């Protein structure tokens, strides 16, 4: 009895160990050298890929006056990324949307603000934070900060749908697929996947476009009102704008270091 118990304990111990080393073993298995002569395969980033240490965005909100000014940007993003349009607000999915100053910057408003500013549409999206609390919370690293360019991404294959990241994001940037999104995509962009029910999604800074040398869709659609570039390149357009304008970020005091800057 006693020894069989010990056996069981051993079994559990070993299987826990095995589970925790599985990714390590996978890494070895994926190592081309381990597969023998058949596989001398390599991977490249692609010649036109845009590179940065940390992508950042500057939104010149002074240039946006009405919904008509922001809608093309939202539409550009949502249509190419197959973001569904769900009928029930509870299930809503959005990557980039507009809101009023008091919601974009709660607790940061002045009283008796200019009416124009109070009702100006502010674009909000994932901030691709430099110190993202969402990635810290994820139990599977399904959402992660990409080392190569600082984009906070989702690995939809891995996400278990626990929604811890949604609770951890202080900007409400994340949406959950409460149901199969496919029936609610007006026109599917066949070059980009949709999502399955049960996973979390959000803005990906158009990682798929940067990889082929194109700027994010919203930036392209903004006709210069939104600037995009490398935060750590002193000559980049975003640095230029940050240097020559007073900019603010959402909830700076939380230490997540958002990469979206607003000129107000």
């Amino acid at each position: 009895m006693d020894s069989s118990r010990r056996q069981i304990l051993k079994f559990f111990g070993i299987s826990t160990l095995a589970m925790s080393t599985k990714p390590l073993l996978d890494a070895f298995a994926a190592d081309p050298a381990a597969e023998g002569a058949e596989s001398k395969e390599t991977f490249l980033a692609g010649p036109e890929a845009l590179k940065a240490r940390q992508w950042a965005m500057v939104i010149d909100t002074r240039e946006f006056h009405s919904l008509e000014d922001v809608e093309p940007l939202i539409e550009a993003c949502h249509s190419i990324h197959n973001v569904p349009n769900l009928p029930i607000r509870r299930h809503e999915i959005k990557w980039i949307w507009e809101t009023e100053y008091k919601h974009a910057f709660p607790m940061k408003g002045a009283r008796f603000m200019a009416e124009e500013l109070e009702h100006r549409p502010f674009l909000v999206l994932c901030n691709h934070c430099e110190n993202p609390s969402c990635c810290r919370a994820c139990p599977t690293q399904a959402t992660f900060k990409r080392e190569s360019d600082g984009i906070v991404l989702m690995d939809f294959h891995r996400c278990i749908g626990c929604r811890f990241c949604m609770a951890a994001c202080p900007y409400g940037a994340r949406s959950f697929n409460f149901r199969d999104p496919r029936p609610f995509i007006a026109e599917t962009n066949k070059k980009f996947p949709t999502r399955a029910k049960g996973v979390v999604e959000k803005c990906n800074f158009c990682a798929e476009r940067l990889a082929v040398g194109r700027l994010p869709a919203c930036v392209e659609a903004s006709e210069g009102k939104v600037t995009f570039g490398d935060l750590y390149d002193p000559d980049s357009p975003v640095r230029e704008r940050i240097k020559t304008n007073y900019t603010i970020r959402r909830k700076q005091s939380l230490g997540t270091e958002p990469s979206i800057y607003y000129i107000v």
Partner: protein
Amino acid sequence: MLELAIRGSKKYYGWMLFLLSIIGVGFFFYLKQLDFGLGITGMSRDVSWGFYIAQFTFLVGVAAGGVMVVLPYYLHDYKVYGRVTILGEFLAIAAVVMCLLFIVIDLGQPMRVFNVPLYPSPNSVLFWDFIVLNGYLFLNLIVGWNVLEAERNNVHYQAWVKPFIYLSIPWAISIHTVTAYLYAGLPGRGFWLTAILAPRFLSSAFASGPALLILLCLIIRKTTNFDPGREAIQTLAKTVAYAICLNVFFFLCEIFTVFYSQIPEHMDHFKYLFTGLHGHGAYVPWMWASLALMLLGIILLVNPITRKNEGVLAVACVVIFAGTWIDKGMGMISGGFVPNPLHEVTEYIPSVPELIISLAVWCVGFLVLSALYKIAVSVKEEVGT
């Protein structure tokens, strides 16, 4: 000993069948949820955790509450608890089983739950919660089972069990601490962002867990030949009394900090729960009821005259269990999500399927609990203590 769980009276079978039938209905709705997605619940983009996670949080507390009998018995050799310790351990097992189920049914992609151990992420509190909960289940199974089996065979439990017993005590504290850290470490959620969250969780756990245990003891005494003992019940009642006092005290500490500092990010959640915010206040009556129940519980339990009357004691335990349940199983989670990070109010009302599934999980817990208690009580009756 397992055979004891399947040999029972008609009443026992009837009860188990009753539970199974509710579980069956719940399972049917769960299949619907699997098919449709979590959209069949009342959760939303803004309130992304709801009833399931709230039940989970509450039940971690019930599980941790078991330590209130384990600790005095094993650490201080408090003999009176000899009869109820096993009941505490088995209650913890049933509660942890419910916790794990609530986590799994809350997942959007439950088939992928093993991604958690597959891609260990020590940064994530949920990863640690996964470890401590499973560990606690494992510890209680080892300890409870072995000690009970030894008792049946009229021998002292083996020496190797001892370290597990000692380990299970801090482990019980850890499960609820880690569960509190799930919430307390999130920037921008002012309701949870407080160092007193873990102590608050623990104090409410040490009230609700033992309160349930007292009720179970009273039921066992009524329905079987085993008497857990009046003195054990009375001591447990004192534990509940002081734990619920602490819980209310911690709550008042929180209220002071939040409302004296007047920081809106922290204050607005309390306002939403207790007075309503921007015209939304579905939880207001519940929250006041919870507070009233807890205060009533204090009055009934601190006062020795009422405490010593077992009828009143039973009422007090129900009152406290209900009060802490509303506090944690309803207000604690949705309160943290309203208002949302953009300071908009989206209310959360659980849907009917969601409630049925939750009820079914509770029934699974009671099924496990009944089987385990059946075993424990049969052994106790056998050895004639």
